[in-house]
């Protein structure tokens, strides 16, 4: 079998390539060039930088495998970056890493795997794939603290049949130890946290540059629409934010809504941040169909604990009713449905269902 390994230049994908080689497969490494400056150079901060591509190429050479840089700049711009900006201006909190997985890695690159002479696509994601009589299952990683199954929820049977995630079976410490044993230069490299297309490491700088409207001063209103203050740009706020509002109203206030198109920040009391449910669009299920038992755990942010809820089909969308009210859920983030360790599916939060109705809505 010949495996195509998507190498970011980090330790996880380096070890993923090494593990495939150790399993006796032919391995081809690629780095996706996703973002470039005006002169066509790769970025120097964030992940997927020139230095990262150099690291990936060096690891591939140390492992004695072919390695290429593939140009995905156009796809990445239109499918990920433009959508990130448009979603933000639409008042959402998008997750561009999920969009990149959906459209670039596990669509464009996966579809090209055979043309590149390879049988499977391998990435360094921390998650596990299992196969039984029912088909393929997507499970959380062995190392729960590094689990990335949330950002892979869009994968279905067709995709999982052609994907391998070898490091999801290992604890992160063991991944690093394995890299160190092989003498790979990425062994002690820190995990990347930043968005690859954000030069400074702060997505707000990117929005200020690319979408000046996001940095437009505007008003802060309460949930009844009464102006209670002013701000220097919606870009500085996130749903659930309590600090830095510059408004003193006795009882603590939180950002409950952001409207970049009108440069309005809506603040409210903690209970006004509570939601009893949310509507999820673009839902896919790993098994190909919704589970019979609609009681699931739902993860509404990358780094949050799953909470119990019940799924209801609502036309083309799905509604999640949380068992207990939840705080600070942001439209644009993914809602991912779990049962225990297993990812059942997920989609994008379109809107939240408030516990207490705001008069404004």
């Amino acid at each position, binding site marked *: 079998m010949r495996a195509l390994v998507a190498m970011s230049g980090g330790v996880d994908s380096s070890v993923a390539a090494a593990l495939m080689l150790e399993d006796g497969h032919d391995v*081809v490494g690629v*780095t996706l060039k996703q973002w470039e400056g005006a002169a066509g150079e*790769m970025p120097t901060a964030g992940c997927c930088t020139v230095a990262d591509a150099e690291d990936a190429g060096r690891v591939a050479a140390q492992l004695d495998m072919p390695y290429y840089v593939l140009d995905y700049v156009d796809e990445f711009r239109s499918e990920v970056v433009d959508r990130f900006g448009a979603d933000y201006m639409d008042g959402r909190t998008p997750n561009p890493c999920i969009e990149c997985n959906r459209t670039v890695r596990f669509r464009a690159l996966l579809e090209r795997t055979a043309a590149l002479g390879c049988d499977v696509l391998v990435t360094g994601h921390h998650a596990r794939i299992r196969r039984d009589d029912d088909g393929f299952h997507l499970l959380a990683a062995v190392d729960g603290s590094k689990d990335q199954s949330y950002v892979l929820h869009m994968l279905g049977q067709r995709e999982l049949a052609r994907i391998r995630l070898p490091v999801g079976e290992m604890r992160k410490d063991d991944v690093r130890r394995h890299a160190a044993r092989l003498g790979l230069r990425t062994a002690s490299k820190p995990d990347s946290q930043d968005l690859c297309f954000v030069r400074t490491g702060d997505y707000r700088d990117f929005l200020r540059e690319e979408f000046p409207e996001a940095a437009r001063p505007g008003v802060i209103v309460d949930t009844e629409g009464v102006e209670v203050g002013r701000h220097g740009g919606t870009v500085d706020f996130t749903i659930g934010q309590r600090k830095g509002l510059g408004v003193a109203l006795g009882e603590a206030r939180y950002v409950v809504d952001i409207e970049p198109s009108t440069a309005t920040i809506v603040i409210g009391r903690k209970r006004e941040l509570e939601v009893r449910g949310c509507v999820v669009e673009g839902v896919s299920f790993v098994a190909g169909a919704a589970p019979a038992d609609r009681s699931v755990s739902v993860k509404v942010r990358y780094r949050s604990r799953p909470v119990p809820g019940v799924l209801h089909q609502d036309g083309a969308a799905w509604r999640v009713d949380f068992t207990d009210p939840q705080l600070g859920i942001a439209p644009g983030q993914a809602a991912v449905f779990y049962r225990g360790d297993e990812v059942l599916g997920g989609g994008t939060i379109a809107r939240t269902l408030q516990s207490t109705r705001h008069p404004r809505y």
Partner: protein
Amino acid sequence: MLYLDHAATTVLRPEATEAMAALAADGYGNPSGLHGVSRRAKNVLEAARERAADLIGADHPLEIVFTGGGTEADNLAIAGRALVGGQRGGIVTVATEHDAVLETARFLATMGCDVTIVPVDRSGRVDPSAAGAAVTEGTAVVSVMTANNETGVVQPVAAVAEAVTAAAPTVPVHTDAVQAFIAEPVDVAALGVSLLSLAAHKFGGPKGVGLLYVRNGVELEPVLHGGGQELGRRSGTHNVVGITGMVAAMEATVADRNSYRHRVAAARDAFEDGLRGYVPDLVVNAPLDARLPQHSHVRFPGVGAETLLIRLDQAGIAAAAGSACHSGAIDISHVLAAMGMTAVEAGECVRFSFGWVTQSGDGPFAADIVGKVVEDLR
């Protein structure tokens, strides 16, 4: 593995290897000193300079300035002319030049130099009268490559030089002959140029060595400042071993050139003929009567070059597309864009380049492998 990327760099010629090996142990002297060790090194260096001057038809050995490669030679020719005497001289060059010329011109434009880029026609050739017409009294240098590194298209350098001289007799013409030297007769008098760049590794010499021919009387501002070697035109301790290897490779190249032209052209033509059996709609991106004999720059309609090159690598054929940036990704070539190609068309082009080690069976052998991979991808 069959290496068909000789235009990127080629195999060291045995003459170069031997010349350098002979100096490797005790050829360490710095030619700029006064003692015996230095004198011996100086003697080797100046003998190499005389032979190099002879091989390109220079009038005097001191018209040869040794550099650290072709890029440096181009930088010295362009920037050295534009900045003479604290001036901001004008630069006239062509849209399909190597980045060593174009990027230098762009940098100089940010310093206040006037840069004029002359277009090419769809075949990649520049119109000599257009180059002549672009010259003004402020022009410090006109730069037109002898042959293009990507497509192999040969430029009418002598006609350009004639047109420039007719327009402004004192404006020197530079030619980047880096890609052409292995195949084309390069004589500075016949070309009518005052500046000419060579890079050793393109014709079987070592990497990191080149030269700039500077016609006697053409003033240059140095780009590298320091100890004042090369009559102040290029500071830095001489790479005597590398220079010796380069000049040995130059001699071997000139002696082999006629035979080489026939060998690589036969292999290249057999390759393209064989390829047409698999790819009837194959497009050759150069005028057949004005391209280097080793270049086969072709378009496979409907097949992306990036995927094709990776599959060819797996199948044992080393070829290239566009110009690789330092990260290794393929960028759309400015050369093909200047020839009026769309981005999609440019993204379907691959360069196969044969070399001095090419064997007669290499063409048909490569055609079968490439043809089958292209068929599989279509």
